[in-house]
């Protein structure tokens, strides 16, 4: 640990886009529950954003297991978003996005659903993205629960055109109630993986354009501290 620390410090201070923000393959970006916290057995909507930069038509499987078994739902994303109607309950919620033909989404093995790591151990790194999250369980009445944050102001599309591979464009958002903003991009990249949102809901994310003359799709995930999530998606022309 002792020798690694200075190296980490040096690595963290490099200029340019952060490698962590670049999406090269299918990747689950977010799973937004609406409402963000639910009571047991309460219906809710889950919107999965699965980036598909290679445009292979990734499919999504969502499931949750309890003592009685595992409930699965399969969906084909429309413009990288798939919507599922689920019932509330504790425990981890799993979201698997796969390129066609890689994962057996039609008839997954129960053992794989209960131990997703064992399933991943049998799948390739490419073309597969497994994500997990826990939707907070609540007993509060619906009217008193917090809601997902909302993006009230986002940068114009022309703002993205101001970015170059060396000089980032400052993308300014206003999202009241959000605490953090995570940036992802299919080309180029954000300067930092995460930025704090100020008390007025304002955050600025520097974004670098790709070196090659290519289009990029940008995803910014805003989170609060109560399970609330919202996603902004933008496009940069070549």
């Amino acid at each position: 640990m002792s020798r690694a620390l200075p190296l980490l410090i040096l690595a963290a201070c490099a200029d340019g886009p952060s490698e962590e923000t670049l999406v090269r393959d299918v990747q689950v970006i977010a799973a937004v529950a609406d409402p963000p916290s639910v009571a047991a057995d309460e219906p809710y909507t889950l919107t999965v954003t699965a980036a598909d930069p290679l445009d292979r038509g990734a499919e999504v499987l969502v499931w949750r297991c309890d003592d009685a078994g595992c409930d699965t739902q399969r969906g084909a994303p429309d413009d990288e978003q798939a919507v599922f109607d689920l019932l509330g309950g504790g425990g981890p919620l799993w979201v698997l996005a796969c390129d066609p033909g890689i994962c057996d989404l039609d008839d997954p093995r129960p053992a794989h659903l209960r131990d997703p790591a064992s399933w991943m151990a049998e799948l390739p790194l490419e073309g597969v993205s497994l994500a997990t999250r826990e939707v907070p369980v609540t007993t509060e009445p619906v009217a008193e629960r917090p809601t997902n944050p909302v993006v009230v102001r986002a940068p114009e599309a022309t703002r993205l055109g101001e970015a170059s591979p060396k000089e980032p464009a400052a993308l300014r958002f206003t999202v009241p109630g959000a605490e953090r903003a995570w940036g992802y991009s299919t080309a180029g990249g954000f300067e930092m993986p995460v930025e704090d949102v100020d008390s007025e809901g304002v955050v600025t994310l520097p974004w670098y354009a790709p070196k090659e003359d290519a289009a990029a799709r940008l995803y910014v995930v805003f989170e609060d501290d109560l399970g609330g999530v919202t996603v902004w998606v933008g496009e940069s022309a070549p």
Partner: protein
Amino acid sequence: MLPLTLLIGLSFAQTPVGPSESAPPGAPAEASETAPEPAEVLAAPVLEVIVRDADTLAPVEGLSVLATRGEITRSLLTDAEGRASTDALEPGPWTVEVLGGGYGTETATVELVAGTATEVKFFPTLAVAPDDLAFEIDVVGKRLTPEVTERVLTSEEIRYLPGTNGDVVRAVQNLPGVARPPLNIGQLLIRGTAPEDSAYYLDGTSIPIVFHFAGLSTVVNGDLIEEVGFLPGSYGVRYGRTLGGVVDLRTTVKLPEASNGYVSVDLFQTTAFVQQRIGSSNALSFSGRRSYVDALLNPILNGAGDAAVRAPRYYDGQLRWLAETPTGGTFDLLWLSSDDRFRVVGQDADEQDEVQIGLTTWFHKLRLQSREDLGAGFSNELSIGGGPENQSFAIAPDGEAFERPFRVSFRDEVAKPVGSGLWGARLGVDVIGGSWKSEYDVPAFGVREVADVPLLLPAGYAEGTLRTGPVRWTGGLRGDVASYGPWTGSAIDPRASVRIGDAATVFEGSYGRYSQFPTVRQVEERPELEAASSWQASVGWEQRWTPVFDTEIAGYANRLTDLVVGREDAFRFFSGPPPTGPLDTGPYANEGVGRIYGVEAIAKLTTDRSAAWLAATVSRSLRTDREGEDEALFEYDQPVVLTALGTTELPKDWRIGARGRYGTGNPYTEVVNRIYDLDARAYEPVFGERDGARLPPFVSLDVRVDKAWTFDNWELSAYLDLQNATNAQNVEVMSWNFDYSEEDPVTSIPIVPAFGVRGAW
């Protein structure tokens, strides 16, 4: 008992002087130096002479041996084994003369020290005229101890060892039985055990750490240390509470002949050392060291980012009063302090300076020791030492962890060495008391843990040795109790060994039990935990082929049971790279078992101007952490470790040396996929078969050049120690990129041109 237990002697004043006028070429007398083995440490001065024919190495019987000191003369005859032994003698310089039988007269001068035994070997030649060669004896012979074979290297050899910066304990890392630690940091991985399974002692009193930060240097100046006892396993009952090896730093018990000292400056630190003789029976010594790695690194690190880095810096100091008592014993009082710090300072939300990452280790100890001859071959060694220790870690904004024990050690041992007699014995108590305070409150590692308990670890041990002809039988028993507040544990460890042979050929074997108590933290969480234990068996063969070439080979097998496993996800003060996984996050339990077996060998060539050795270890270390799990490789399992080194004097006070090392890479578990945690926005690895892969082999070369200039009243020396001279990029630790899609190994430190100068008077 263990052929590969090595001892490193470290005193300028103690280099025995060989026959200056009469030694035939290639047949030097050898004097085995004093006191490394505990039983011998306590003995009154004893002289044992061994005479072997220089050509045939056969024992020479019937030669006259005269030991003379002033008006005192002892006359002896060598027996059928070529041996002649004295009873207790007066400390000081003695002249030993061997004559008769058609051999030329041989003479050597040796320094007998209170509480020690000294062995002198002569290799006379029939009817050979003496020549005028004068030489210094660098390597002395193996000591006749009932249980442990020891090898003595002079301080000169240590100082000039390539790749170690002349550090006394880092020299141990070159020996067989020691695996190479990742990043060459200050860990001793002894016989397939973890670093925390080995213990460090200063004159038999445990000390919390032996290396400064990152293993740059030992925490005690080597010039205060007479020898470093390295016991990789199967040691006697004097040592306990550990499953692995033991490193015992033993301070010199000799008064300096005259006042002397030095100042040295090298790439990492500046050292000042002074010892002043006061009257005929007292001496004061002082040593101080301060590293300045921070001064070198800080500008580089601080220029790379916003945070202000306070790179590793350490200092240590020792102050010692050593006195000879009227009865020939010694009394000494030693104060030692050590302090290591590393910090990264940044600014908090209010733009106030705050320590973002901080790591601090320090201890202060006062040690009193008395060694007295009780008469009739018995002697007594009493050590009392104690003081505060601290290890603390902080990470912004609110993570904190510390361990702050205050330990007092008490050891009293009465011993009679077997020497050349029929029997020997050892009886001792070894008590540690004090308090333990700790807190682990680092949010990323789980819930806060706090402990504040009294400590009491009493132990008693007894051991007897019987000589029947060339065979020495030793049996002993050690009983340990540990009490941490309401928790109490105990262990009974029987141990036995046998040693067969004479000075040239020795066979050894041993078998015994070793126990290690769980930590305070572990029993605070799981009071039902018990001591882990290890049954250790070993056999060995030592052979001196010629007066300058000898070999040792040892085989060993250890069976470990009741190892404490679990909670690998909890915060710990790592002395090396943290584990990469998969981690056992279950509760602590005595469920671990293990097997360790291997063969260690060393071949050593030593002449008056050169020293070279080849050390090899072939071993396997296996663990089963939980019942029902498959057996897997130990995380530091290194099946093959080879070290070859040599150093030689050249004309005009030049010296050159080199060290080559090869080691099998450590096992690691591959990451075969990953899972993205949307709540933490971080990837979690999916591991493949445990320890199913290995890091590439480690290969490295170090080269060292020294030059000395001698003036009327002082000497100036300089060196260049080119570490990793080929700039090999060895993989030290496996790491991965942020999403585990690619391996991102941590490679070894590039070429380091360590250099230094030293002025001594």
